[in-house]
C-alpha cells in the first residue's frame, strides 16, 4: 500500500471511527440564556460526535449515550456556558444548562440562533453581524450578503476574485481595516477578500461602523470588518460544490474531527475557478477600415480567476498547560487575469495577470485561563512569506475587445515600464510577523479589563522599476496597545466600555528620489526612518430603556496610521513622504432599537464623523504622485432597518441608508477647490437600500425536509464621480430627486437589482444533511455600474450542493 492509500485509511479511521458506538441512556434538560429559558441553543457533548439544538421552549434530549462521564457545553454565537460534567449511569431528565451574556466572548461556535444573533447585535458597541452559517447552504456570496447590510456598499465589478473595496458608514479605502479573528488580515495577503471567500469558510462577519471593541486591535478610523472563522467543537464535515454562470466552479471542504476531549484536528479548504466571461456593452472596437470606434457588446475574454486556499489545524485542549493550543498551517495560491485598467474599459488586456502565493503560513494560538478564570490570556503568533507577481508579458502587441491581437511597437501591455527588468514580471515579497496578545482580567462578574496588544512587522522586498537588477527594501512595524474597561451597572441596565488605545508605527526604507510638495519641501535620498504615533480614546454605552428598547451611544477620537506604501511610495511613480501624518477622526454614534419578539424589530442609527488629514494620492507631474494629508470630511449618516415576522417562517426585512458626508476643505494650498466645500463626497454611494423577503417551509412533505425561498432587492441611488457644488445638486429633498443644474456623463445612474433563490435541505440519519441552493442574480439583467463606470456582471445563475456529515 502506498503512502497515499495508507493516509486515506488513517484519515478515514480518524474521521469515522469515533462515531461508531453502542448507547443506552439519554440526557434531557433545558437551555437558559441569562437565567431565562432560551431555545435554539446548541448543546454539545465534548469529545463525542454528538450535539443538538434545543427546541423553541429550550428543551433538548441527547439520546443513545453509553454509560460514562460526559462534558457538556452550550453555546451560541459568541457566548458559551461553563462546561458541565455529568456521570451517566441512568437517564438524566432535568439538566439545566445556561449561558450568560455579560461579556463578549469572541470564540466561535457552530450554530447560530436567530434570537442570539440579535443578542450579539445588541452589544453596547453596535456591529452589523452577517451570520454566514445561515447561508452556508445557499449560493449567495459573501459580497452579496454584505451589500445587503445597512450602511455598507461593496465596490467591485461583481466577478469572482475582484479586488472589492468597501464603503462603511462614511469610510472607504484604506480607512476601512480588515481582520480575521481579530488579527489584521495582512498575513493572509488578499486570499480572504470578501469577493473571494465562500460562505463556508467563515462563521460570521462583524462589521463595525464606529467604536471598535478592545478585542479588535487595529488602527481603523471607525470602520473595520472582522471575519470570524469556524471554530467547531464536535466532529463534523461539510463538502460543498457550487457551479455558476460564466464557468464558475467552487469547491469547499470543512472537516473537523474531535478525537478526544483533549485533541482535535481539521481542515478548511476551498478552490475557486471562474472565467468571469460575462457580457458587457459599449466596448470600443476599432473598425480597421474606417478607423471608427464602434461600440460593441461582447464577452470579456481575459477576466478569469483561480484560487486555492486551505488550512489544516490541530487543537490541544483542556490540558493542564493550555485550555487551547492550536497549530494552524495556512496555504494559498491565486491567479487573477486582468482584463482592463481598474477605472475604465477603454482598452483590454489579453495576457496581463496577477499572481500571489504563500505555500506555508504557520500560526500558533494559545489560550489558558488562570487564577480561577480571573485572568484569560489569549495569544496568537503567525509568520507569513507572501510572493506577489504582476505579469505584463505582451511585447509589441495589443488586444482588441474580441480578443484578437494586433501588432504595435510597445514593451508591455499595461504601460508598465519594464526596461530595467530581466523579464516582464514585477515581483514583490512580503514577510509578515504578527503577534496578538489578548488579556482579559475579570475583576467582578460585572467588571472586566481587556488588554489587547498587537504587533505587526512587515518586511517588503520589491523590484525597483527605476534601476537595473535592483530591489527596494522597506520594513514597517505597527504596534497597537488597547486597554478597555467593560462594565455592567444598575442591575445590567447600563453596559459600557471605556477604552484607550496607543498606536505607533515605524517605517524604514530607502528614499531614491527627492520630495517636493508645494513649497519645495525636500528630503535627502538614502535610508530613512519614519515614526508615527497617536493615542485614541473611546467610550460606548448601552442603556436598556425597557423590555423591548435599547439605546446605544458611543464616541471616539481615533487614528489610522499611514502604511508603508503611503510613506515610501513605490520608488517609481509614487514619491516618498516621510512626514505623512496619521488620519484622524472624531466619531459619534447613536442608535435606538425596538424588538417585539413576536413580529417586529426595527432600529434607527445615526453617526457623525469629523475626519481630518485624510491621506490622498495627489498628482505632482505627469509621472509622479505623492500621498498627502489632504482632505477634511464631515457629516452624518442615518440608517433604518426593520424586520417583520408576521407568521412562523416568514420574514420581511429591509434597510435604508442615507449618508450626508461633505467635503470640508484641504491642506493643499494649491487645491483651489473652495467652491466644493460642503459638496457631497464624490464617487461614493450615499443613498441605498435593500429588501429581502423569505419564507421557510419547516416541513416539506416530511419534517426532515425543509426549504427556504427568498427574494432580494437592492437599490442604489445615483451618485457623481466628481464633486458637484451643493447649490447645483438635484433640487429635490436631500438631493434625492429633482433636476440637477449640472448635466454630466460622469455619473453612476440609479440601479435596481432583483435576485431570488431557494435552499432545500434534508436531514439524513446520523446527523447527515444534504442541501441544494439555487439562485438567480440580477434577474432583470439591469446594467450595474458599481466601480467607477465599469459595467458589472449582468444576470447570472448559480447552484450549490452541500453534504454535511
Amino acid at each position, binding site marked *: 500500500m502506498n503512502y497515499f492509500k495508507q493516509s486515506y485509511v488513517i484519515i478515514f479511521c480518524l474521521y469515522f471511527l469515533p462515531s461508531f458506538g453502542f448507547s443506552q441512556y439519554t440526557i434531557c434538560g433545558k437551555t437558559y440564556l441569562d437565567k431565562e429559558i432560551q431555545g435554539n441553543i446548541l448543546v454539545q457533548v465534548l469529545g463525542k460526535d454528538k450535539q443538538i439544538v434545543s427546541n423553541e421552549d429550550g428543551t433538548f434530549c441527547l439520546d443513545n449515550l453509553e454509560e460514562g462521564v460526559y462534558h457538556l457545553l452550550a453555546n451560541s454565537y459568541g457566548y458559551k456556558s461553563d462546561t458541565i460534567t455529568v456521570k451517566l449511569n441512568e437517564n438524566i431528565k432535568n439538566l439545566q444548562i445556561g449561558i450568560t451574556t455579560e461579556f463578549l466572548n469572541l470564540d466561535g461556535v457552530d450554530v447560530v440562533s436567530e434570537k442570539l444573533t440579535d443578542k450579539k447585535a445588541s452589544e453596547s458597541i453596535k456591529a452589523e453581524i452577517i451570520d454566514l452559517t445561515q447561508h452556508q447552504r445557499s449560493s449567495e456570496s459573501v459580497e452579496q450578503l454584505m451589500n445587503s447590510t445597512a450602511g455598507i456598499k461593496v465596490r467591485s465589478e461583481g466577478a469572482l476574485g475582484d479586488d472589492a473595496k468597501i464603503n462603511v458608514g462614511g469610510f472607504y479605502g484604506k480607512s476601512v481595516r480588515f481582520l480575521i479573528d481579530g488579527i489584521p488580515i495582512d498575513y493572509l495577503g488578499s486570499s480572504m477578500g470578501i469577493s473571494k471567500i465562500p460562505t463556508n469558510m467563515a462563521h460570521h462577519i462583524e462589521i463595525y461602523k464606529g467604536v471598535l471593541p478592545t478585542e479588535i486591535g487595529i488602527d481603523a478610523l471607525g470602520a473595520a470588518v472582522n471575519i470570524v472563522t469556524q471554530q467547531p467543537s464536535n466532529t463534523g464535515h461539510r463538502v460543498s460544490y457550487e457551479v455558476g454562470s460564466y464557468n464558475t466552479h467552487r469547491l469547499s471542504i470543512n472537516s473537523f474531527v474531535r478525537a478526544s476531549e483533549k485533541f482535535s484536528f481539521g481542515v478548511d479548504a476551498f478552490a475557486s475557478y471562474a472565467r468571469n466571461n460575462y457580457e458587457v456593452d459599449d466596448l*470600443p472596437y476599432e473598425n480597421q477600415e474606417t*478607423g471608427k470606434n464602434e461600440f460593441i457588446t461582447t464577452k470579456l475574454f481575459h477576466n478569469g480567476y483561480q484560487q486555492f486556499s486551505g488550512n489544516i489545524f490541530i487543537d490541544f485542549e483542556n490540558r493542564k498547560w493550555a485550555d487551547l493550543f492550536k497549530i494552524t498551517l495556512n496555504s494559498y495560491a491565486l491567479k487573477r487575469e486582468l482584463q482592463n485598467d481598474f477605472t475604465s474599459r477603454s482598452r483590454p488586456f489579453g495576457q496581463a495577470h496577477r499572481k500571489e502565493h504563500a505555500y506555508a503560513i504557520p500560526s500558533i494560538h494559545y489560550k489558558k485561563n488562570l487564577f480561577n478564570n480571573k485572568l484569560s490570556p489569549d495569544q496568537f503568533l503567525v509568520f507569513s512569506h507572501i510572493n506577489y507577481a504582476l505579469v505584463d508579458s505582451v*511585447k509589441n502587441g495589443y488586444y482588441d475587445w474580441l480578443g484578437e491581437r494586433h501588432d504595435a*511597437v510597445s514593451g508591455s501591455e499595461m504601460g508598465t515600464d519594464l*526596461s530595467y527588468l530581466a523579464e516582464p514580471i514585477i515581483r514583490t515579497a512580503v514577510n509578515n510577523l504578527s503577534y496578538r496578545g489578548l488579556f482579559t482580567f475579570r475583576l467582578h462578574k460585572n467588571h472586566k479589563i481587556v488588554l489587547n496588544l498587537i504587533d505587526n512587522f512587515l518586511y517588503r522586498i520589491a523590484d525597483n522599476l527605476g534601476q537595473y537588477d535592483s530591489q527596494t527594501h522597506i520594513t514597517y512595524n505597527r504596534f497597537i496597545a488597547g486597554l478597555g474597561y467593560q462594565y455592567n451597572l444598575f442591575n445590567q441596565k447600563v453596559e459600557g466600555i471605556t477604552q484607550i488605545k496607543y498606536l505607533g508605527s515605524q517605517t524604514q526604507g530607502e528614499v531614491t528620489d527627492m520630495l517636493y510638495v508645494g513649497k519645495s519641501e525636500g528630503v535627502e535620498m538614502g535610508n530613512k526612518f519614519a515614526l508615527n504615533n497617536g493615542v485614541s480614546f473611546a467610550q460606548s454605552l448601552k442603556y436598556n430603556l425597557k423590555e423591548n428598547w435599547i439605546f446605544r451611544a458611543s464616541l471616539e477620537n481615533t487614528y489610522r496610521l499611514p502604511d508603508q506604501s503611503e510613506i515610501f511610495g513605490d520608488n517609481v511613480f509614487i514619491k516618498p513622504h516621510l512626514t505623512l501624518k496619521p488620519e484622524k477622526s472624531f466619531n459619534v454614534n447613536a442608535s435606538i432599537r425596538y424588538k417585539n419578539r413576536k413580529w417586529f424589530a426595527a432600529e434607527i442609527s445615526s453617526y457623525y464623523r469629523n475626519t481630518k488629514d485624510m491621506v490622498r494620492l495627489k498628482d505632482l507631474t*505627469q509621472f509622479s504622485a505623492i500621498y498627502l494629508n489632504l482632505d477634511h470630511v464631515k457629516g452624518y449618516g442615518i440608517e433604518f432597518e426593520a424586520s417583520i415576522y408576521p407568521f412562523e417562517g416568514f420574514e420581511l426585512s429591509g434597510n435604508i441608508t442615507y449618508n450626508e458626508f461633505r467635503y470640508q476643505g484641504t491642506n493643499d494650498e*494649491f487645491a483651489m477647490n473652495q467652491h466644493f466645500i460642503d459638496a457631497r463626497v464624490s464617487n461614493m454611494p450615499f443613498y441605498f437600500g435593500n429588501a429581502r423577503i423569505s419564507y421557510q417551509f419547516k416541513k416539506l412533505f416530511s419534517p426532515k425536509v425543509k426549504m427556504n425561498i427568498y427574494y432580494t432587492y437592492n437599490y442604489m441611488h445615483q451618485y457623481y464621480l466628481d*464633486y458637484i457644488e451643493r447649490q447645483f445638486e438635484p433640487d429635490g429633498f436631500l438631493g434625492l430627486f429633482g433636476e440637477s443644474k449640472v448635466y454630466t456623463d460622469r455619473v453612476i445612474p440609479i440601479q435596481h437589482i432583483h435576485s431570488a433563490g431557494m435552499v432545500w435541505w434534508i436531514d439524513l440519519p446520523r446527523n447527515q444533511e444534504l442541501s441544494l441552493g439555487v439562485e438567480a442574480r440580477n434577474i432583470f439583467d439591469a446594467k450595474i455600474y458599481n466601480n467607477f463606470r465599469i459595467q458589472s456582471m449582468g444576470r447570472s445563475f448559480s447552484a450549490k450542493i452541500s453534504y454535511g456529515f
Partner: protein
Amino acid sequence: MKLVVKIVVLIGLFSTTISSCKVKNLEDINIPKSDFSRFNYVLATEDASTEDITTFFAYNPSNISPNKIYDLFNEEDLFINSNPSTSSGHVSMNQFFFSLAKDKQGYSSTPGLYRLTLNTKNRVYIEDNLSISKNNLFPARQLCIVNENLGFFYNEGKDAHKIMVFNPTKMELTGSIDLKPIIESFRPDADWVDNAGNNLVRTGSLVIEENEGKLYVSIVFLETAGLNLISNDENHFYLAVIDISSLEVEKIIAYEGVKTVGFFVSENKATTVDDNGNLYFCSWGWNQFNEGNPSKIFRIKSGETEFDMAWEIDIENLFGQGRIAQSIISYNNKIYVHISDIAYPFYSSDGNPESMSMSYYVIDPSTPDQYEQLNIPASNASNRINVFSIIDGNLMIAVPNAENGKFNGLYQLKSNGELEKYIQIENKYRPTRLYKLEN
C-alpha cells in the same frame, strides 16, 4: 388584519421612498442641432481645482455683459452646460470641434479623436469619433485639420511611425504616411526601441501642422520612453516635411538649441501660422527630468521649407532666466505669447499652475528683440491648452485665475486694436477655449 395593514404600510413607505428618486441630469438621446444661429458659441472651462472636470457652456454673445461676473451653472438661461467627459480641444471646424481625450483622471484619460457638437437642447455631446489606441505609455498626439476633407493625427499605439490621414467630415481614415524610411536614412543608428521594446522614436507627438501645402511633423528621439526623456546629448528639434498633395515625405529638417515644442500633452498646440504664411514654433524648453533648453520661438519663413536660422525669439534673453512662453498665436501678423512672470518651476511639474503668474505680450516678428505687454491682468499658467483663439476675426484671450477676486474670463482684441473684457466668470471656472459653431 391590523398586522397586514402595518406590513402593507411599511412596504408602501419603502417603495415610495425608493421609487420617488428620479433625477434628471443626463441627456438620454442626442439629436444633432441644425440651426446654429443661436446658442452657437461654446465656452469650455475646466474646474479650478482639477482638469478632470471640463464643462462646455453654449451661449449667445449678445446676451453677455462684460462687466458682470457669471456663475455659469447658475445662469441656466444664458449658459447651457454639458460635461460629456472629454477635454476641451484646440481645433474646430464648422459645427464641430475636436477633443483628443475622454474620461480624464489626472494625467490619464482615454485617447481618441472625439468630434463634438450641440444637440437640439444646445448641450455639447460626442457626435462621432475615431479610435486612437491607448498605447502602453500613453504619449501625446497632435491633430491637424487642413480642410473639411483632410486631416492628420498621430496614433502611436497603432502605428508608431505613421501619421494617420482622415476625412474630418466623414470621420473616416483615408490613409497613412509612413515616416520610418526617411528616419532610417536620416539617422541610421537610431535606437528604435528600449530594452523592453518600447518605441523610442515618436512622430507627431509634439507637432503636426500644415502650411503652404506642406505638412510638418515632429520627430523625437527619446532616451527613455516612459518619461518622454530626450538625451542630454541631443540638441536639435526635428521636423519631417511632407507634401500634402502627394503625401510624399520630402525631408527631415533640424533646429539647433531646442529639443521640444509645446508640452507633452495633446491639446496645447504650440504652432501658429501668420497671415503672410510664416510658421512659428514655440518651445517651452522643458525636457522632463533631463536637462532642458531655454524657451524659444523659431520659424519657417513663408515659401521656405527650412528653418529660418536668422530669426529667433529667445525668451530667456528677452524676458529673464527661466521664464517660458506657454501659448502662442499669430494675429494680424503679430505674435501673441503667454509668458511666465518668473522662472517656471518645472520641478513640480507643469503642476501648481495656480501658483504661477503669466502675462500676455505681443511681439512684432520684424523686431523679435522687442515686446509689448498687453493691458490684460496676469493669469495662472495654462499648461494643457492654448489660451489664444480667433473668433469672428477677433483674438480671444483666455485669462484663467483661480484666486478669488482676480479677473477670470476672456479678453478680446479686435481687429482695430481695441482690447476689452469679453466675459468674466467666477474663479472656480478656468476658461480654456472658445468655439463658434456654424453650418
